[in-house]
């Protein structure tokens, strides 16, 4: 008889407890981490150094880069390094890069597309557009040289050294999680300019993922 009464007590306690437990456990059991907290961007970080003093990092007022095969030129300003996105569908990426040389020229505009140097009398002609702020010009005297227009009280023309950086790598497509989706990570194999006289590219950190922000490639540039 006593055992029977004990069992009824337990039944009552459990009936009360089950309602509470179901509520709380429903809250906890359905918990998933439903927001992506991962950095899904794994950029290639390139730092600029002087070839004459390899410990010296070089800063630029601007650098122009464009992935060969893309429509988008990137103008990065006031930088010591730059982040680029590698092509995940290929094992090679080519980037056209323009580095401003120290030489500058101040010009006045004579006609719509013609600019004349105040100091040398050289004439420059509009030759193309990179984006709304950057225009390419032909120097009438040195026909192949290109210049970039910067707007000030004068038009400031600065000679740019153009070259193409070639990078080879292995690409891995990573499914990070259900809440974040996919990202690409890379392992660098080679890097270098395709022309002589620009500088040397050294791979300092071959693994490109979102965890590691250490510079991946160091460009040791001539003439800086």
């Amino acid at each position, binding site marked *: 008889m006593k055992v029977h009464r004990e069992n009824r007590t337990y039944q009552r306690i459990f009936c009360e407890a089950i309602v509470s437990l179901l509520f*709380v456990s429903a809250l*906890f*059991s*359905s918990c998933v981490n439903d927001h992506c907290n991962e950095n899904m961007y794994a950029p290639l970080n390139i730092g600029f150094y002087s070839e004459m003093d390899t410990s010296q990092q070089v800063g630029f007022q601007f650098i122009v880069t464009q992935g060969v095969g893309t429509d988008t030129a990137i103008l990065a300003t006031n930088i010591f390094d730059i982040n680029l996105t590698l092509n*995940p569908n290929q094992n090679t990426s080519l980037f056209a890069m323009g580095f401003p040389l120290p030489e500058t020229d101040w010009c006045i505009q004579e006609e719509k597309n013609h600019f004349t140097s105040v100091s040398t009398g050289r004439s420059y002609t509009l030759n193309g557009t990179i984006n709304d702020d950057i225009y390419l010009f032909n120097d009438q005297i040195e026909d192949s040289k290109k210049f970039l227009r910067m707007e000030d009280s004068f038009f400031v023309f600065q000679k740019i050294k153009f070259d193409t950086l070639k990078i080879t790598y292995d690409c891995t497509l990573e499914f990070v999680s259900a809440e*974040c989706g996919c990202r690409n990570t890379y392992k660098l194999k080679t890097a270098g300019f395709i022309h002589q006289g620009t500088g040397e590219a050294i791979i300092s950190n071959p693994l490109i993922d979102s965890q590691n922000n250490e510079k991946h490639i160091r460009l040791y540039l001539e003439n800086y």
Partner: protein
Amino acid sequence: MRSIFDYIWKIISVLLLFSVTMSVDAKSKSEERPQKTLYGVFVDADILHPIFHLFNHDRMGLNADIQIDLWHKLYPTLTIGYDWFNASDEYSYPIAANNNLYKVEGLYFKTGLLYNIWKKDYSKALNPMAFLGVNYGCSPHFQYTIENYPINNEYWSAKNTTFQANGHTTSHWGEVVGGVKAPIAKNFCMGFEVMYKFLLHIKDQQSGNNLIHQSYSPGFGDKESGMWGFRYTISYFFHL
């Protein structure tokens, strides 16, 4: 939010009431030594996850275990379970995707040891119990299916493609368990358990140039926030 705390407080109150009842009951018994080593075997079935399935058809779980009653004190346990979870709607995937799917399913096993912290009446074969213990869990070959996750690369004007993968992988985890169990009818008990889980490892799968991490494991739950687990059990006790 206040109602949540009310419910939590109610549970704590019920547990306290339960403990007082049990203590008083146990104190009235004379101290005895165990009369035998093996009192019997519990066979438990969880009813909580089947109840959840009635409200959420994307989630289904079944599990059962056996617990061997040694001296009314130690309870070696072995659990077998099966989880099926279509997790697609649970995650706030940031990129609008067409029917992206993430689904896992598979068997899992747990083994562990529980210790009865309640005072025992050794003269009875079946006693109420409150226990603490540890478990090791493993889902040795669970299946994952991933479909229609977009791979975007706007800069390189790559064609928008989607990621598809399926396969099997393995997970391991540990648990700290606490709970109570009490007889409600002849040889039948009801009980509930709370588990704090910690993930030991989910094996990443490398397939060609693809590396696949998992977000979810059967038996454990979400990799990042699946720390808490609950069971509500009905048991049958086999006397030995």
